[in-house]
Structures are given as C-alpha cells and as structure tokens.
C-alpha cells in the first residue's frame, strides 16, 4: 500500500510520525548547509574575477583563467614540490613511528611501567601547535640549548630556524614528537584483541619472540594500518597549516611555502579571492580523487576499504 503512495504523502506522514527527530536535526543540518555546503557553492568564485565591492552577483565570469594561470605560473612547481615533500616525509617517517612504538610497548611485561610510559608519551598530543612551535623556537634558537650543546664539540651555532635545509627535518621531528605516542592507542587496541592462545601455541612450537611478532602481532595490525594509510593518501595535499605557519619565515620560505600557506597569504591577506579559491578547488579535487583511488586499491588487494 504505502509503496504506491506519492512521495509527498509519504514525506508528510514521516514528518508527522517523526517530527521530534526531524526537529532535532535542524540546528546540525543548518550548520552543514551554511558552513560546509555554502562554501562549496562559493567555489564558483574561482571562475569569476571576484570583486568585493561588486559582490558575487555582479563580478565578471572568466572561466578557467585562474586555473591556467596557476598551472602555468611560477608558484605551481614550488608549491607542489614543497607540499608533496612534506607529505612524502610524513608517510615515510611519521606514519610508521606509532606502529613501531606500539610494537615495543606491546612487548613490555611490567604493567605499571607500560602505564607510566603511556601517560608520559600521550601528553604532547594535547599541546597546541603554537606551544610546540614556541618550544621549538626556544630550543633551536641561536643561544638555545641545542646550539649550546653543539658548541661543546666546537660546531655551530646553526641557524636552524631560518635555514632551508633544517625546515623539513624539524617538521618531521615535531610531527613524531607530538603524534607518535598518542598514535599508538589505536594499534594497541588492535593488538589487545589478539587471542593469547595464538602466542601460547607459538611458544609450544618453539617460535622466537621475533617470529611471534612477525607471524601473529604484525598481521593483527594489517587492516587498521591499511585504513589509516587510505586516509593519509587522501590528504597528501593537506599539510598541517598551523604547524607550517608557525615554522615558516622569510629565511626558509623557498621550502616552507605550501599550498595552504600560499592561499592564506595571497587570499586572506592579499585579497586575491578568485585566484586562491581556484587553487583550493584544485587541492580539494586531487584529495577526493586520491582517497577514492586508495580505497579502490585497498579493496582490489582484498582489504576492507573505507566505505
């Protein structure tokens, strides 16, 4: 019966029956409409010569002009290189760090020692990037403790904070320092679901701890590692804006300028709204393609994907 009713009648019935639930949706839905879907509509600005004074409706349409200008311009290669380098370094160094740390923690036999270490290494996750950037500044500055330490061996002082060569290593170390400890939680959770009998059986068979790790512990982590890697792939063009902004300066600009900092400087400070919107659209679309591609690949090789 109800299948044959027109949509509007079914809709009216649903509203009458579940009006409380729909009412509860209103504030949240309004948020998504205004602040998440509104800006998606605002993407149209990328195809305009948006002018604040003339507004959205009266600005001229220019098609793909901003996109071609970006792709052919001098900034494209620098921004892409810097952004991709940071992502690559993150996947190579920062991504495995919590996995390795979790494997070490998992081998600990003293429960109280494990808890103490965990309590200490989770702290940085709750510290803001501003504080981490400020602490980095204090530690690496000209008269700071790291340079004082190096001075004991007759080297330095090095201008770490403004040097082109030091920027990427500092970014990686900051990332590991802040995230590796807390990142272990999800892997330790996956490990806690491993059946202890598997280890006991392996011991009876004479397997060393290394072989137990290789054949039991690591396979238990596979699916969560794949899941996190998919998410990571989708964000190769999203650098950590807060972290980069705090560490970049005139000295290291040639390696520290990434898509988001460029968009911030040219767009919000410089007022080139259309050009920088186009760059942001490019970034979002690449991100969407990559996350879908990574998900398909994971499914193709027999892992459960994201969706």
């Amino acid at each position, binding site marked *: 019966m109800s299948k044959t009713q027109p949509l509007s009648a079914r809709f009216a019935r649903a509203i009458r029956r579940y009006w409380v639930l729909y009412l509860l949706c209103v504030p949240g839905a309004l948020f998504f409409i205004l602040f998440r879907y509104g800006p998606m509509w605002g993407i149209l600005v990328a195809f305009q010569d948006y002018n604040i004074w003339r507004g959205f409706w009266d600005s001229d349409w220019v098609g793909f002009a901003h996109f071609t200008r970006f792709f052919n311009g001098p900034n494209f290669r620098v921004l892409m290189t810097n952004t991709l380098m940071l992502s690559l370094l993150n996947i190579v160094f920062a991504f495995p760090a919590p996995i390795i740390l979790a494997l070490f923690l998992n081998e600990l036999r003293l429960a109280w020692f494990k808890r103490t270490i965990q309590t200490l290494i989770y702290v940085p996750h709750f510290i803001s990037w501003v504080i981490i950037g400020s*602490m980095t500044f204090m530690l690496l500055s000209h008269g700071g403790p790291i340079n004082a330490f190096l001075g004991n061996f007759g080297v330095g002082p090095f201008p770490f904070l403004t040097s082109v060569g030091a920027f990427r290593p500092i970014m990686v170390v900051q990332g590991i320092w802040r995230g590796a400890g807390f990142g272990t939680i999800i892997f330790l959770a*996956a490990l806690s679901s491993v059946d202890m009998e598997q280890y006991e059986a392996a011991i009876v068979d004479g397997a*060393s701890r290394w072989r137990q790790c290789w054949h039991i512990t690591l396979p238990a982590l596979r699916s969560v590692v794949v899941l996190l890697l998919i998410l990571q792939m989708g964000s190769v063009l999203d650098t950590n804006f807060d972290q980069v902004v705090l560490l970049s300066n005139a000295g290291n600009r040639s390696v520290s300028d990434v898509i988001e900092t460029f968009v911030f400087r040219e767009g919000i400070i410089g007022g080139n709204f259309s050009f920088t919107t186009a760059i942001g659209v490019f970034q979002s679309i690449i991100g969407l393609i990559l996350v879908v591609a990574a998900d398909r690949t994971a499914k193709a090789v027999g892992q459960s994907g994201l969706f």
Partner: protein
Amino acid sequence: MKRNDTIYSRIFDVFNVLFLIFFAAVTTLPFIYIIAGSFASQAEITARGFFLIPREPRTEAYLYILESRLLPRAMWISILMTGVGTAVSMFLTVTFAYPLSKKYLPGRNVMLALVVFTMLFSGGMIPTFLTVRALGLLNSFWALIIPQAISVWNLIVLMKFFQSIPEELEESARIDGATDWRVFLQIILPLSTAGIATFSLFYAVGYWNSFRPALLYLGGAPDLWPLQLVLRNIVLMAGGVIQDVVWDPDALQPPPDSIRNAVIVFATVPILLVYPFIQKHFTKGVMIGAIKG
C-alpha cells in the same frame, strides 16, 4: 604465561625498556627545560645551555607578564571560547547525532551521506572565509566558534555510541507511553553521560588549542585574540616583549628568553592541569571511534 627466556629475549627486554625510557624523556624534558628557563636569568640561560633546575630561581618574568593586561585578557577570551564553544558544539553534535543514529528514520541515509561527504571534499579556505564574512561573523567572537562548531568525526562516533544503546530500552519506554521527547531527554541522555563527557573534553581541548580561526577571521579585532595567537605573537614575532607592560625604568627588565619561557608555561599549565581528567576518557573515545561500520 610462560615465555621462552633465551638470552636474546632478555637482551631485547633490556633494550626495549631503555628505548622507551629514552623516548619518554625526549617527550618530557623540553617541558622541564622551558619551566626551568622561565625562572632563570639571561646569564644562566646563555652560560649553561641545557639545564633542568635553575641555580638562582627568579620570578621577575612572571611578575612582568602579570603586569600586562594583554595576557590575562587573552586567557579570559580563551576560557570563554572554550566554555561557550564546547557547549555550542555539544548541543549541535548531540541533537544531530541522535536522529542520525535511527536507521529507520526516512531520509537519514541521505543526510548521513551528505555529512560524510564533507570529510572528503570541502569548499576550501577562501570560500569558507567568504561565507563567514557574508554572514557578518568576521572580527566577532562567534567566528572563533560557529564556523567549526561540529567535528564530523565526533558526530559519527557519537552516532555509533547512541546506536550501541540497546533498542529494547526505548521500546519498553514507548510501550509505557513515553513520547520521542521523553525518550531522548530522560532515557538516552542520562545513559550517555560517559560519552557526552568524553566528547566535551575533546571539543574543549580543541577549542583551547585552536589558533587557525583567530588567524583567519579575527585579523581586525586584536581585542578578541585568544591566548594561542597572543602567545605566537609574543614568542615568535615580538622578541619576548609585551607592548603594554609598564615596567619600572630603574629596575632591570627581565631577559626576553625567560619572558618567552614564562609565557609558554602560562599557556601550557591549564592543559597539563586537566590532562589527568582527559586521560581517563580519551582512550575510551578513541576505542569507540575505532569501531568501523
């Protein structure tokens, strides 16, 4: 459990404990250095390099920063932003997560798909900025909160949390004649206090640490800058000088490095104070989030 205690296994255990102690020390020592540095004189900072206990502790740096009106005001803005922001975020997240947890609700799948899509694709920084401006929120206190009020991640995890509450509880209440309102207010919410506490803490930490909204939307309203932005300006841009401090010209101004250290401590202490309370909850929150489906 019996383990095969070969000599290699023992050597590994010793190495493992040492490695983890080293990692924990690297995590902790920078904090202690900053605290020590905030009580030290410039001569000591320059001469000793790395140290964990100052030889002659001084408190001038703290007296100096407390003279400033800038820092207490920024602290107050941060507290207000954290309190109001957490309340707003929790209201929006709870009221939306509950209907989304009802698989039988017509239209629910469409709404959920639209919500999840925003995790994969977004308008980007500039269109969001233009939206915030069009709504008249630029340079207002609310720009610190409203444009980033709902975290999709928290929303979905809370939705799963609601789904884990046994359906029978709601059904038996309905048989007793309870309306949807009463089920939500008198059954679901009281059963969810643990989840609500966890997500409130996540939001609160997020607001306290947030720096990007102030940088993007409050460029023209320095009176409303929260602590994180003011901290950046003092430490990284103003060379450890706070502009509005009136310091006795005859007295020696405290060294810029200890002022910087003191400002960092000032901004870090609140998080470290709540850390023990957060710690109890966050593991649980991450666990709920780890359940995929």
